[in-house]
């Protein structure tokens, strides 16, 4: 054993003790640098996420306050003379339907939909042949 150690000591350009020292220092340096990096990444991530969530909250609050402050848009004024509730606008084409039946159909649609007749626009009413 002693001979081997002696032979090693003679042949090596660095002593074994120094080689061990370099190896241990080497792994410690790698661990330290990467551990430092890990801590930095952790802090950085937390910082960035905090900034991002604060910005999100700020934007959210701003949007809420803007929507609260904003006045509801005024309805556009009707142009021209308003139609009576019982009247309907536009031209209506009737196909094989008399005016009385057409008036009944329009009244039913208005009643069923809950929309006054003056806000409905009928284009045509066509009788379907059986």
């Amino acid at each position: 054993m002693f001979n081997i150690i002696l032979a090693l000591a003679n042949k090596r350009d660095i002593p074994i003790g120094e080689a061990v020292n370099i190896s241990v220092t080497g792994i410690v340096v790698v661990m330290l640098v990467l551990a430092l990096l890990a801590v930095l990444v952790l802090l950085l991530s937390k910082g960035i996420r905090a900034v991002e969530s604060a910005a999100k909250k700020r934007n959210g609050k701003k949007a809420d306050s803007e929507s609260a402050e904003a006045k509801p848009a005024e309805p556009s004024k009707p142009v021209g003379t308003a139609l009576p509730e019982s009247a309907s606008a536009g031209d209506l084409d009737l196909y094989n339907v008399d005016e009385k039946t057409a008036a009944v159909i329009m009244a039913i649609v208005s009643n069923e939909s809950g929309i006054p007749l003056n806000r409905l626009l009928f284009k045509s009413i066509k009788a379907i042949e059986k």
Partner: protein
Amino acid sequence: MSVVNAIVEIFQESGFMSLSWQNWVMILVSFGLLYLAIVKKFEPLLLLPIAFGMLLVNIYPDIMADPLMMSSYEGTVDPNAHWYDAGVLRLIYAGVKSSIFPCLIFMAVGAMTDFGPLLANPMSLLLGAAAQLGIYVAFMIAILSGGLPFFDGFTAKEAASIAIIGGADGPTAIWLTSQLAPHLLGPIAVAAYSYMALIPLIQPPIMKLLTTKKEREIKMDQLRTVSKAEKIIFPIVVTVLCVLILPSVAPLLGMLMLGNLFRESGVTDRLSDTAQNALCNIVTILLGVTVGATAEGKTFLDLKTIAIIIIGLLAFAFSTAGGVLFAKLLNVITRGKINPLIGSAGVSAVPMAARVSQVEGRKYNPSNFLLMHAMGPNVAGVIGSAVAAGFLLMTFGK
């Protein structure tokens, strides 16, 4: 001149007569590597050009001729020679010798790497550090190998170059060796790349040996989403921190992080695309062929090469063990939240080592998906091996 004489003369000047037995052995080795690359598909993008460079230089050694002794370590200087009289692969080899190719490859690796899994779990960095254990164990083995009878052993610079094989990072091994022990570049590069290709065979038995079935079945929580800002700031922070601590690591790590910034910044898509594809492919071809061409039989086949191959394998094994054991420790600390199989991915070799963790994990728990968890230590290993190389260069590069 008779036809017979002409045929005899052609035969005498042919490679059949001029090649040594070492060249023939290396030609057979190159066939073996070509088989592994083409049939077994072991890292074919690297192994194929390396094997073909090896084949070329052993059939026609003058393809690496160096009459001006620009980068050779044996032979005589021809005073009448011009730089262009050198063999064509020797001229291309200047890119390896000057560390240009390894650094460009690192830029490409950076452009291809998503550090998201590492940012989502910074603990991965510790696994990437622990998996560098093999480097320092191999350094000690290389130094101690001088005690063997009939073996001269290695100098400290040679031992450091051999040890870096344990980083499982080809460009880093070439970069460090070309600066500390350029005469060993051939065997070290061939060993590093061959073992990287053989990771699916080397790692699983070690992973199995060091973990219990219960540990291998551990299912890990899903990683959080990483913001774009984190991904952009990360390469800048790593560059500043690591280069300030270990300035010698600047060429490798700087290029790695530059490539990554190309990818993540979102404003240099064209540069990122070039680094990931065209540039990477071009440099891989030139690097692979010329590294393979350094394995000329007469200089490659000796006792030192065999020792390098053995120590390289041990370095890989110890690095894998270091990563797995540290992951086991983290598993204990986090009370069963870390699957120790991801530790082996800390040996770089992106993404091969992470894939091995994924495949092994699914063998024991089919619903387990470890790939993204293993990518963290995997990319951390690239940084870890670069830092280890920087430390060795700082220690022995004077």
